[in-house]
């Protein structure tokens, strides 16, 4: 500083130097404060994007996670992207865990909130929770469920909702793991004050999150939980997804229809996924029951990308049929690498591969893949046509998937059960706790005409589905798009 003063030809006696030094110090302090606040702002913004981005803005145009406060002010309207910001606590709203911890710490507040919500139900829309995986490894399936649920929300609200009262979906991201599902469920139950929940995406998550809803007496409909034992978790747990033991054997029948000479079968499954494990058990039992020769059982992980080892080993067994139980990404990749290395026989894919997202993974090599389905876009029913029409408005020509249809069905069952309950006794007069219990009974008693066909429930909560489908993938010449062609 002194050097600067000299070079500018200024007088540099003691007073001036001190003055300059003081000013310089002030400038430095100012700069520090300013830099500090800029850094703080930047970190805040980063946190916002990191947390909020993952949860609230996972899918643009998708519903935001509601900025529920400790007072338990009802909820945000789904799709209202600005509400979270307007409430001024976006960062908190993104952090599901923080909220749910706060809620457990303040049981009295929440209890108080519950009563007021029940009172408010008469005038406001009815909150239904959607706790599926919007982020993480299974986000693909979860996003399809989000779309299905959003379409259902609009579809039924346009038709007058629950006897004139609108419904509103509250979305909470479960991510792909158990902890995420537990947090999301707690949040929906305690802050969202939902009447019921459609979720979670994976059976694996259902085994940890469903008991929480069951203890809180909140009805849950599993949209895609097909493993053994889901409805047995508790009285409040039911599912709209047919169990794998019912769906899977249809695919083997279809494969034998295409090639009656099948003898050797190799089975591969993702050993880190509860659903795939359960599914492969059914496949293996069916293979043995049909008198086929199960030559090898190989495992992989849903996180794997390199399957050459499994593919090489499979091909060395010279199988006529290969059965893959995994999720879209790993399963699709396994199919691709099997074909790349020269496997020519039939391949059956499990329920995890039952999505158009698999086209992008195995591309032209997906062609011919046989998949048993609980839903077929080609099913010729009135409800399915209406559903397809509604889906078309949302996502254009992409045909609806089973996950779209099952999430839609989950919302539909809630809406119709609420309607018939409201016809018996006005739900606006009920407390939230009473409503949840009565709704659960009503769900299990009803019959529903859904895109999946006609469904009802056993007293335990297991789905009774009238019809199943088997499809074979036909890829278009461009190698990136294709269709599920209905074969049975």
């Amino acid at each position, binding site marked *: 500083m002194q050097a600067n003063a000299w070079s500018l030809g200024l007088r540099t006696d003691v007073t001036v130097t001190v003055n300059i030094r003081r000013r310089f110090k002030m400038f430095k302090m100012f700069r520090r404060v300013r830099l500090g606040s800029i*850094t703080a702002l930047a*970190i805040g913004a*980063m946190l916002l*994007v*990191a947390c909020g*981005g*993952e949860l609230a*803005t*996972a*899918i*643009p145009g998708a519903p935001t996670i509601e900025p529920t406060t400790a007072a338990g002010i009802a909820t945000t309207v789904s799709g209202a992207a600005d509400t979270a910001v307007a409430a001024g606590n976006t960062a908190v709203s993104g952090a599901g865990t923080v909220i749910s911890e706060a809620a457990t710490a303040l049981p009295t507040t929440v209890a108080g909130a519950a009563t007021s919500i029940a009172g408010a139900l008469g005038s406001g829309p009815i909150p239904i929770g959607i706790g599926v995986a919007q*982020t*993480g*490894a299974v*986000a*693909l399936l979860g*996003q399809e469920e989000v779309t299905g649920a959003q379409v259902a929300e609009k579809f039924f609200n346009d038709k007058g909702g629950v006897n004139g009262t609108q419904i509103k979906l509250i979305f909470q991201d479960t991510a792909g793991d158990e902890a995420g599902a537990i947090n999301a469920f707690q949040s929906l139950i305690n802050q969202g004050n939902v009447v019921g929940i459609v979720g979670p995406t994976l059976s694996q998550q259902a085994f940890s999150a469903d008991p929480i809803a069951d203890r809180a007496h909140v009805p849950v409909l599993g949209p895609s939980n097909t493993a053994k034992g889901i409805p047995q978790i508790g009285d409040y747990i039911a599912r709209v997804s047919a169990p794998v033991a019912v769906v899977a054997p249809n695919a083997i029948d279809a494969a034998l229809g295409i090639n009656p000479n099948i003898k050797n079968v190799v089975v591969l499954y*993702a*050993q*880190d996924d509860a659903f795939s494990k359960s599914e492969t058990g059914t496949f293996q039992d069916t293979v043995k029951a049909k008198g086929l020769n199960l030559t090898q059982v*190989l*495992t*992989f*992980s849903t*996180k*794997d*990308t*390199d399957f*050459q*080892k*499994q593919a*090489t*080993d499979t091909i*060395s067994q010279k199988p006529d049929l290969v059965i893959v139980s995994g999720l*879209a*990404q790993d399963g*699709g*990749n396994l199919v691709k*690498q099997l*074909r*790349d*290395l*020269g496997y020519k026989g039939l391949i059956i894919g499990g329920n995890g591969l039952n999505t158009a*997202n698999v086209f*992008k*993974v195995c*591309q*032209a*090599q997906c062609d011919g893949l046989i998949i048993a389905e609980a839903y077929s876009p080609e099913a010729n029913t009135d409800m399915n046509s209406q559903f397809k029409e509604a889906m078309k408005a949302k*996502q*254009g020509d*992409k045909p609806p998937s089973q996950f779209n249809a099952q999430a839609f069905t989950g919302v539909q069952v809630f809406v119709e059960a609420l309607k018939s309950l409201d016809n018996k006794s006005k739900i606006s007069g009920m407390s939230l706790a009473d409503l949840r219990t009565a709704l659960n009974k009503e769900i299990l008693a009803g019959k529903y005409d859904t895109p999946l066909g006609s469904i009802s429930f056993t007293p335990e909560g297991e789905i009774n589905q009238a019809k199943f489908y088997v499809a074979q993938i036909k890829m278009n010449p461009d*190698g*990136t798009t294709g269709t599920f062609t209905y074969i049975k």
Partner: protein
Amino acid sequence: MDLTSFVQSLLNGLSIGSVYAIFALGYTLVFSILGIINFAHAAVFTLGAYFTYALVGGAVGFNGLLANKALPFGLPFALALILGSVLAGLVAVIIEVLAFRPLRAKRADPLLTLVSSLGVAILITNLIQYLVGAEPYSFPSNTYEGLPPAINFGTPNSPIPIRSAQVVIFGVSVVILVILTFIINYTQFGKALRAVAEDATTASLLGINTDFYILLAFFLSGFLGGVAGTLVGSSVTIAGPYFGISFGLKGLAVIVLGGLGSIPGAVAGGLVIGLAESFLPAELSSYRDAVAFAVLFIVLLIRPRGLLGRTQIQKV
């Protein structure tokens, strides 16, 4: 083990090992100069794959802000690989300028820099998901123009098929490794870079512009990450915005195994882990990651400084 599966495992191991190596070299370059692990490297790896995907003319899916958009042109894969990796390198440079340099200027604790890089990684991952959705992206099936899905390394009667993708990965990785070794060891630039890595203060006293070389190190690191991301993405799929994360952990195992900050170490570590994974029996292959870290653990017990690492001399 018969000859076919031995040769297949060997080639697969070399192929995946070499891509581990170039990915881990990205960590090593930054570590040897700044002494910190750049967690954002895994996110740059992911970005590189997306850049190349866009440059070959791939369209964005129906999720995300950029839904259904695509560039009006499609470059040949080789050119897109280079350009996409250069873009990844530039992102790494931006990360250095925004996330590392300000903290370094304030002499922040290395732990803070580490957390800052982790923040950048999360930010980039979420940004990707926001822009293009969480769905997987596959390179068009004719990416390696003219090559069949698999190449036969055996005879027509006893075939040893290897996927072309693996052969391409191995070839590109070896070329990159040779070029990088040449640059670091035999060019003025490489010498200056090594001088900065040895002692930044002394290097700057000798007239080397350290900030410039740090930027260049970040660029190279990002470039290598981009190449690795593209190669893996084109061989399997770009499995979504999170696909760099598990790879990032593997990369850390590789550099620790090879010796922190050692370039030949990163290569050796990559090959050891790649081969260990590919020679694992198929029944156990879903425990591949556990094997990688078990190898790491055993090597560290015997040689705490890694395979080719140097012992740190503590000066008092």
